């Protein structure tokens, strides 16, 4: 907290907090001391108010998730309650005014978190979207893998640039494969380990598909496919415990898991960066696996494709069920008629 500088020309324009609202506690100490506030000359870059609370707008990627209930240690309980109350109030205020003013609002414009929370269908994915997410930025040239060379567009600034034309085509192939798989009722496993954003993307993708979808984000238990009966129990040998496809969001760090999938004959999809051999997965998607936005975009769109397949599968099942019910009813009617028929003759 800094005292307001004497260069503030007009007392009417008080410097205010980074998030744009007076901290309420300050308001009522002004009878005894000068109004103190954080100078907002840093604009959005200043993220912390005096209580260390981050700005919730614009810089947070997960706007549509529920806020955590974490309470920092340096706040007293009363101050924390007050902060919570203020946040709720501001949210309500924003929600009230959001649909007003103009036809353009937060709902119908692109926001940074849309690639995570609102992915498009695979047929709507564009080259420019991939490029905006940084999917074309490969690894440093010193880590360049010779077998990845067919997918490299060129080299610039000491990194390999991935050819997004091929990426888009291979991506659509992988998405179509997933869609077909889930249309037939197949299971998908999403694997994203070690890196927080990859873990989050894997979980979100799995949740989006809903049925027949699982994710591994903590640790791949070694031998879970090839040695399942020893790790889980002998009863799994009778069951159908293998997924029908596995999607790896960072295959470079899961080579053991990939080897197991290969051994168990589970087809794999993976985001392959330019320092990885694309042959380790069945369906490679050459793209940058280090950028959160690229990973979220790709996993999101893949999950939308899988979700479309699931919807189709559910529709087919519902249709078949209705047909079967109708046939059973017809058969029963015919039986009833036959029973009544012969005496009339």
């Amino acid at each position, binding site marked *: 907290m800094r005292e307001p500088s004497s260069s503030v020309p007009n007392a009417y324009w008080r410097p205010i907090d980074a998030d*744009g609202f*007076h901290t*309420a506690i300050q308001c009522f100490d002004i009878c005894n001391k000068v109004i103190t506030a954080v100078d907002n000359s840093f604009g959005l870059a200043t993220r912390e108010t005096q209580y260390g609370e981050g700005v919730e*707008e614009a810089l947070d990627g997960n706007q549509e998730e529920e806020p955590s209930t974490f309470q920092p240690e340096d706040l007293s309980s009363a101050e924390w309650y007050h902060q919570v109350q203020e946040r709720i109030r501001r949210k309500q205020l*924003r929600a*009230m005014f959001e649909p007003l*003013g103009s036809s353009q609002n937060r709902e119908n414009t692109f926001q940074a978190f849309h690639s995570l929370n609102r992915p498009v269908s695979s047929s709507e994915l564009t080259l420019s979207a991939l490029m905006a997410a940084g999917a074309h930025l490969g690894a440093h040239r010193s880590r360049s893998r010779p077998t990845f060379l067919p997918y490299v567009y060129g080299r610039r600034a000491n990194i390999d640039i991935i050819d997004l034309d091929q990426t888009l085509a291979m991506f659509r192939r992988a998405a179509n494969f997933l869609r077909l798989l889930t249309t037939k009722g197949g299971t998908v496993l999403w694997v994203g380990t070690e890196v927080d954003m990859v873990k989050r993307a894997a979980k979100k993708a799995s949740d989006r598909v809903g049925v027949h979808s699982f994710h591994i984000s903590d640790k791949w238990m070694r031998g879970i496919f090839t040695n399942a009966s020893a790790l889980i129990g002998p009863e799994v040998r009778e069951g159908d415990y293998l997924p029908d496809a596995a999607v790896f969001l960072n295959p470079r760090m899961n080579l053991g898991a990939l080897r197991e999938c290969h051994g168990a004959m589970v087809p794999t999809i993976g985001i392959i960066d330019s320092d990885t051999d694309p042959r380790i997965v069945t369906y490679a998607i050459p793209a940058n696996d280090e950028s959160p936005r690229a990973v979220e975009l790709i996993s999101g769109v893949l999950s939308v494709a899988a979700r479309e397949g699931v919807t189709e599968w559910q529709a087919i099942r519902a249709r078949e069920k209705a047909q079967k019910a109708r046939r059973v009813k017809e058969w029963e009617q015919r039986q009833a008629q036959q029973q009544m028929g012969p005496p009339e003759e």
Partner: protein
Amino acid sequence: MSASLLRRATGSLAPLLRSAPASHTTATCRHRAPRIPAFSHVRSGSRALHGLTQLRYPTDEPLGEFWSREQVRIVAVDYQEGLLLRLNDEIRGTEYEAKGIADTVIESATKREDALIFNYASQALNNSFFLDSLVPTSVHLMHDISADLHKHLEEHYGNVQQFISYMSAAAMGMVGSGWVWLVIDAQGRLATVATYGAGTMLIRARAQANPMGSRDLPLFGGAWEGERAGAPRPLLPRRKALRSPDGSGVVQLPLTADAANFKFFGQSLNPIMCISVHEHAWLHDYGVWGKEEYLKRFWTVLDWDKVSRYHRKWLDVIQAAPADTSKTGRS
């Protein structure tokens, strides 16, 4: 490049198949035109930016007994659209391009170089909020007022009619343009607050409500027992003179206020409804000096149902607040 040009020319959103490729080279050459059209069902090209919202009533018909057709057009179309067009001109190519109006107001409020953007956005938001709470009818919709709001207004103003005259008086007394708001604070007290110019209720420091150095105060509920009975106004506790949030003057308390919580009096003002105090709102129908008539007739088209719903939403937020009455006296 050619694909995008074609797309703009045809104006259709259907996916385009590629026409003749730019140049046929051998398969190993990487520098070639895109083989896959980068189409999208999202419209490409220039962004539309801000536009008029759909109101609940047509803007080419008179609004009850309040506004004629021309007057409705002046406020709801000419003024609003003009604000949005000018705002679009200002924000093109800036960080505000993809933001909604509320976000634009909040973020530009703190930046002096974006003052014009803030002014346009704030006026557009306030005008939209104002227009949204009107409904075309010639019948008083007072019966639509909810029981909660009715009781609340009675508590603070005596009765609803007194509240109406109080708020109209606040608007009458304003010289210059602005907005008069009915607000509710975190302790559930109702009040009438005026913002001048392009002031907004979203950001306290930009309320532009009480000019610094003057003794003007937020006009809190004026009717209390003492006043009606002719008794002198209650004195404030001597140990701590209560100042208004902006430090401009001493706040007068209605007796109905909870004395234990006066330290946090009016700390957050949440708007419920507003009146537009701009000459363009009454000039065409009532003339330059038609403010009084305008204010009288405003109450005939106010949607009390909507106002009650906003009031209810704020009561829910207040009542859902974790009740933490610790030593600091917050609740």
